[in-house]
């Protein structure tokens, strides 16, 4: 899709609360708010507000089946919002629920401070205590690991055998976590404006990717898995994942275009296109096929904290911190 045409087709939303997270449920963009509500934005331009938490939603994830959202609140609750509109309480406690993540194989994990809860959807969770408060949770695409970004490294937990854990060590505070598409590498973002990577099978093989002017808290892999896209710089920085050691010992490539720091990145499924959200509020579409590039939403001064594609790659969405959001039907990838 040509960025110029795309820009004209974006549906814009403006909500009365700060946006904190977003996720797709089918072709509907769900936007979580600092007021505890989720707004469901549909492709017809309508939006529906559902109040869930007494306080802010700190994190949100949609399940693999695409029939439910999990919302983590600073009221101490984790809630499940079904596509049918049913709301259920999954967890009630006194401490904030900081993070939530869903696996491709039907697991859901959430954390309150140092305590990680891991469950098959609909079942009772097991509890795992992390060495420090958890900053982020993510499952590997192959479902083999649940990763938690903590102080001093990444804690990996086997979802099927939670007593099996692995600690990937690197000094410092880790604030975001993800896995390569083949599940062989774990990557974290750090407080020191860098990324760290471990080869999970041989964690003594690891490397630091530094030099970012801002925290590269957002990163994703191209659909073919051959490169990792990273935010945190005023250019799009990509790292190769072609050799047996991934980017360890390799150099990054950079793609210029856009103004200011990249705040969020996401690769489109079954495609070579990339959505880039900027700290200044602009959103750009970049196509690696011909390196074409263009803004689909203009900068409005508020950081684009997340950019997303629907699982089928048809819909694109973005949210800004100030409570604005955009939704775009790009057609089949």
């Amino acid at each position, binding site marked *: 899709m040509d960025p110029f045409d795309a820009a004209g087709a974006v549906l814009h939303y403006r909500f009365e*609360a700060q946006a904190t997270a977003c996720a797709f449920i089918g072709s509907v963009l769900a936007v979580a708010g600092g007021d505890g509500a989720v707004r469901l934005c549909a492709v017809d331009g309508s939006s529906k507000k559902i109040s869930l938490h007494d306080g802010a939603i700190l994190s949100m994830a949609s399940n693999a089946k695409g029939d439910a959202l999990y919302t983590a609140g600073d009221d101490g609750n984790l809630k499940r919002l079904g596509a049918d509109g049913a709301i259920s309480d999954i967890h009630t406690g006194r401490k904030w629920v900081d993070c939530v993540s869903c696996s491709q194989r039907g697991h859901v994990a959430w954390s309150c401070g140092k305590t990680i809860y891991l469950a098959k959807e609909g079942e009772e969770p097991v509890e795992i205590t992390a060495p420090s408060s958890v900053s982020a949770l993510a499952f590997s695409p192959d479902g083999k690991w649940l990763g938690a970004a903590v*102080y001093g490294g990444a804690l990996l937990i086997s979802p099927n055998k939670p007593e099996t854990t692995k600690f990937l060590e690197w000094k410092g505070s880790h604030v975001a976590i993800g896995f390569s598409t083949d599940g062989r590498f774990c990557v974290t973002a750090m407080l020191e404006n860098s990324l760290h990577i471990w080869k999970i099978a041989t964690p003594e093989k690891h490397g630091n990717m530094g030099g970012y002017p801002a925290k590269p808290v957002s990163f994703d892999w191209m659909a073919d898995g051959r490169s990792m896209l990273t935010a945190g710089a005023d250019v799009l920085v990509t790292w190769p994942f072609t050799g047996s050691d991934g980017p360890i010992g390799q150099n990054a490539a950079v793609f210029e275009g856009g103004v200011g720091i990249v705040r969020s990145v996401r690769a489109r499924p079954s495609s070579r296109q990339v959505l880039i959200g900027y700290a200044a509020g602009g959103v750009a579409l970049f196509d690696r096929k011909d390196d074409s590039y263009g803004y689909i939403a203009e900068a409005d001064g508020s950081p684009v904290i997340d950019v997303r594609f629907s699982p089928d790659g048809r819909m694109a969405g973005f949210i800004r911190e*100030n409570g604005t959001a955009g939704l775009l039907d790009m057609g089949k990838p």
Partner: protein
Amino acid sequence: MTISNEKTPITVLTGYLGAGKTTLLNRILTENHGKKYAVIVNEFGEIGIDNDLVVDADEEIFEMNNGCICCTVRGDLIRILAGLMKRTRDFDGILVETTGLADPGPVAQTFFVDEDIAAKTKLDAIITVVDAKHLFLEIDRAPEAQEQIAFADIVVLNKIDTVSDDDLRTVEARIRRINPTCRIERAERCNVPIDHLLGQNAFALDRILDDDADFLQKDFDDHDGHDHEHCDHDHGKCDHDHADHDHGHLDASRHDDHVSSFSFMTRDKIDPEKFFPWIQMIGQEFGIDMLRMKGILDIKDDNRRYVAQAVHMMLEGDFQREWREGEDRYSRIVFIGRNLPRDIIEDGFMKTRVTA
């Protein structure tokens, strides 16, 4: 809707268990000021905080992976502040209560290190609550209490009704010796007017050493009559002629002090090409023991005051307002730290003066 770009002010409350932190906290929260505060309390805190929005913190101290061992931050605070910033802004400020033995360094450094936190919040002031009687009896044996005073912008000297006037003056002099730049608020049951505590902007560069005018006068005037306590010590030499100096200094160092302070002044211009490398070097070399540094400098060929501050190795500085017509132009720099080598720092600072 509009989302305010105003930074949310953060006030840090430190002090020993029993000094009156919770009393002060409740006073701030219940006073009729029409403002709402989010409160971050530590898990060992005294119970009974009278507020809607109370968050438990774990005081997780994180070292940065940058080779600097004094670069420590409060990891839990980064997480909680980021979370609070996501809420619909239903509060005007945030109060952070630390445990009795907490080192305020990592709390203060969190605001320097984390750019996301720095973009949305600002450290308003560090308030240390001390029990006058307890302090009088225990301070020499309590390095944590000395460090909490060292970091303070405001010391609430509480329970003054439990000590005599003489003892009170002794305690105040002791506080001054640790931290000559803090403001001391005498109190019984923490009855300090709230506007003396909140909205202080104590870390704003344009407020650095703002309350310093009296001190300055005293410093220059006292110079001749000062007893130069450090000459009593075994520094190995005491042969420099104080009369030759065109600068004053208040010496607060004593060997039984865990934390002490000293300041240097000069009416000579400061050479930026000498000063900036030197202060960087001091930060590198002595950052771990340098708790706070504050300075106002009269830089050569510039009509504006240069203002600098540091918490450990974290240095920041900028040119501020112009010197006023007829204003007494001088440079003054204050160091508060653990066993800092006064002679070396003094010698280095004096060498940053413009030489004719």
